[in-house]
């Protein structure tokens, strides 16, 4: 893939991510592989609504050196680690989507049993142990949690979604959010011994009745 096309893909994906509510403001980041030695990634701290393809940063996948004056995302190391380890992955999205982040706060692992979902995500959605954001340790843990799957949860942080191309990675992120919502709903129903359908008002009333301090 040429650099110009990759930067355009990342820029459009950023807007799409923001519009779909998967990342508020500047959180989360996106990368696209160019070849076995290079990838492009979103810049640090910038709002997706005001970046252009020129703001997307070209990076070396091995030594993390970058071109130009715009600083790459502080999570660049995590993207590089996944792109180095998974030759079949060309696009990576890191999001702070709400349902998946909630499950990541509880450090739960979600087994995937549906055959169709397994084809897109893999057999399990694992969660990393704690590590400092952007650190080498976290990069290693994410690669381990991803294993051969396309989605992983980052404890106390968010999610990592991978795909053969950006559309696939996007599909994984959206599917992951749906799976995590279902996991939250099932957790409530199992915890309380209630039967489906899930009702959010009922969950809040139950919480206030049983767990309120007042």
């Amino acid at each position: 893939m040429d650099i110009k096309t990759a930067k355009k893909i990342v820029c459009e994906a950023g807007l799409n991510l923001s519009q779909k509510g998967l990342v508020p403001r500047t959180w989360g980041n996106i990368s696209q592989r160019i070849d076995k030695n290079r990838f492009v990634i979103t810049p640090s701290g910038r709002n997706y609504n005001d970046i252009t393809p020129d703001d997307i940063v070209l990076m070396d996948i091995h030594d993390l050196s970058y071109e130009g004056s715009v600083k790459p995302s502080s999570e660049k190391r995590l993207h590089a680690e996944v792109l180095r380890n998974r030759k079949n992955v060309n696009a990576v999205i890191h999001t702070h989507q709400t349902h998946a982040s909630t499950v990541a706060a509880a450090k739960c692992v979600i087994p995937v049993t549906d055959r169709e979902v397994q084809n897109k995500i893999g057999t399990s959605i694992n969660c990393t142990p704690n590590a400092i954001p952007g650190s080498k340790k976290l990069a290693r843990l994410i690669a381990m949690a991803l294993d051969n799957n396309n989605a992983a949860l980052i404890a106390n942080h968010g999610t990592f979604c991978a795909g053969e191309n950006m559309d696939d990675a996007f599909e994984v992120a959206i599917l992951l959010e749906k799976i995590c919502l279902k996991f939250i709903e099932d957790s409530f129903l199992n915890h309380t011994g209630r039967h489906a359908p899930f009702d959010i008002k009922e969950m809040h009333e139950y919480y206030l009745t049983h767990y309120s301090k007042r």
Partner: protein
Amino acid sequence: MNNIEAKKYIRKWLDIMQETGVISESGGCLSCRIGNKMIFSSINSKSISRDPDSMTVVDLADFKPGKASQLPDSYNIHAAIYRAKSNVNAIIHSVQINTLTSSKAGHVIYPMLDDIAQLIGTSIYTVDIDTSSAGKAGKKVLKALKWRSAVLLEGNGGLCLGNNFDDAHAVSQVLEKACKCEIETTFMGGGHRINPFLAFAMRCHYILSYSKEAEKNR
């Protein structure tokens, strides 16, 4: 920005906040600082008024809590925050579902996600303002806001502070996420809090460095 422009600015954000569910027909409000004045989107019991003429302009220098008795109670608290915190120019009173439930539950919420530690701080307190006089309520809220950008008002949602409405809106989104984690992880065996020292370091890094990145990194 003059008062008329400021009222239009608030009206624009009232629409955005209602569309995104941060405020509702029956609750929540906005205010902003323009120079040494505060403009407050007044509310009535049934719906949020969008009429710019119904918005209240207050001179912050002369304001004494309790002076404007016909205004909503939270009016005093907004004014107290503007007087005490020079970097705050916009406040959103959020009544999103998880924020509202957490404000009723009354727990101190500790961050379980790093964006919560960065944007809000090391904890989110719930303040009981109903039984306090206007002056005391302001003091309680300010104490709970030390090094923090959001506070829950008991049974009444939360206040989200920002340098502008865009910042305050981001705080309201993160506050909602913090409350969602607190509630929903209860049914997953409990959530895992971030180490308080690490949370404090994240907050400091955000205030001193990352929040300025958008302007610097061009």
